[in-house]
């Protein structure tokens, strides 16, 4: 393991310190907790948005705290859901009287910990609602499984529900908007190489020199299968076809696209992927309203990427285009 760190046990703490030192205009720390909130939290009269999860997905989630997106982000240990007490502190710190929406990625651990926090906050009289993101089409959705995982599509939930909250909508409305995003967002990823959780000191899996993992999760969880590496166009086509097969997109629909790097992939490769994605969507007469290419939901230094397609209606589109000002997501 070769990493620029001081101590594997301290990576989250030191990262949070470094983040606050870098962006004091955006975020402050809730003292004693691994929680970042907007400098002006709680914003009175606005629904608060709290998200979080294991660390290692930077800029998710602390990078999205700011105007037009999140009010608070909770950082768990690397790839491990944060604990209820931490989430509870975030909820209390951002509640401006209109309640708090928890944006949760659909993992057993995340759900249990966020639910326990919600129960704790409810005891204090804070209105709490939940939105569970499950955009990863790699995992089959069946009543017999935990359901689909939440991956990069979560960023669209933050953006759009965040914009809704910023407009002064109430908790139910913000939740409804988040759920509309969730119903319309689909993603799938792949990996070229694993990553190393600092505390583990070694990679959780290995891939041979010409092997890739299709359907890779963002915590090093294995995907649907391994195969020999193919061209960027073939891989993009495979992922996008899976996504399109699961969404009900038709000619004339408008979408937002995200080509998300997992941390170790050069931007050059992400743009090469985007070229194919744009071409395939154009061929189907699906209109791309906006494209994001970059590292939005990462897996430490893993090489690989995911594609996310969000079907837009006029409400979602307007909210997606609304301004946002956070450390990692700025938009006029």
């Amino acid at each position, binding site marked *: 393991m070769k990493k620029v760190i001081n101590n594997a046990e301290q990576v989250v703490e030191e990262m949070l310190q470094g983040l606050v030192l870098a962006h004091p205009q955006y975020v402050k720390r809730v003292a004693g907790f691994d929680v970042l909130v907007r400098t002006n939290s709680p914003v009175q009269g606005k629904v608060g948005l709290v998200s979080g999860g*294991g660390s290692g997905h930077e800029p998710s989630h602390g990078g999205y705290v700011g105007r037009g997106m999140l009010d608070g982000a909770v950082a*768990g*240990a*690397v*790839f*491990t*859901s*944060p*604990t*209820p*007490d*931490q989430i509870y502190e975030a909820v209390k710190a951002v509640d401006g009287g209109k309640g708090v929406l928890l944006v949760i990625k659909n*993992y*057993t*651990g995340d759900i*249990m*910990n966020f639910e*326990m926090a919600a129960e704790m906050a409810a005891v204090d009289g804070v209105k709490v609602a939940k939105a569970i993101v499950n955009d990863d089409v*790699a*995992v*089959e959705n069946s009543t*017999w*499984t*935990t359901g689909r*995982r939440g991956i990069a599509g979560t960023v669209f939930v933050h953006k759009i529900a965040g914009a809704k909250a910023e407009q002064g909508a109430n908790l139910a409305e913000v939740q409804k908007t988040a759920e509309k995003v969730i119903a319309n967002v689909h993603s799938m990823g792949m990996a070229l190489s694993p990553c190393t*959780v600092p*505390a*583990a000191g070694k990679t*959780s*899996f290995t891939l041979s020199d010409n092997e890739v993992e299709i359907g890779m*999760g963002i*915590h*090093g*969880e*294995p995907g649907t299968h391994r195969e020999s590496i193919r061209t960027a166009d073939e891989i993009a086509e495979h992922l996008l076809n899976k996504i399109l097969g699961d969404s009900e997109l038709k000619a004339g629909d408008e979408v937002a696209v995200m080509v998300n790097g997992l941390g170790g992939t050069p931007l050059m490769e992400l743009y090469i992927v985007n070229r194919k994605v744009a071409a395939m969507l154009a061929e189907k007469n699906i209109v791309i309203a906006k494209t994001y290419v970059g590292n939005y939901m990462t897996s430490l230094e893993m090489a690989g990427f995911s594609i996310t397609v969000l079907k837009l209606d006029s409400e979602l589109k307007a909210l997606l285009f609304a301004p946002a000002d956070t450390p990692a997501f700025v938009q006029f």
Partner: protein
Amino acid sequence: MANAIAAIEALADVIIANKEKLTELDAAIGDADHGINMTRGFEAVRSKLAAVEQLKDIGSVLKLVGMTLISTVGGASGPLYGTAFIRAAAVAQGKTVIDIDMAAQMFEAAIGGIKDRGKAVRGEKTMLDALEPAYEAFTQEMVKGESLTGCLTLATAAAASGVEYTKTIIATKGRASYLGERSIGHQDPGATSSYLILATLTAFAIEQEV
């Protein structure tokens, strides 16, 4: 309380000693952190117990363990084990010794907590596949009039078989469920930590007897 605390310290030792093994099991079908999570939790438990002046009953010890696990482990296992200890603590409230009936009640309450929180049933490749057969073995022996240590010994054996059994089934709960068929052949990390906990408590109880 010295006994209860010593038992928890024994648990902490075993979990921490198995950090690598549990993490490796999780690497195969999950996200390679179960041993790390549990170790973080039990290290916190260890220092909390050392710091707390006077715990007046077994319930207080177990509650402290549960709260500490909840606030330090994270992931799926934190809320699950945390809830289990807190439910067991409720049974042991005000108690300073554990008899066999109470042990059975605590065991049942703990499993109930895991099921309430995780909404899993046996056969889904989770800690329940170690704990439920263990509990059944325990009560089966108990009605036959076995001693606490005897019941625990057979419960541990059943948990061990349960762990073996997890190798043969598909995961349908937790992170391993994303793997579908590919989860077959791999042993569940949570079932393994459950077995370790039970085995350690059993060994501890036997030691106390002599």
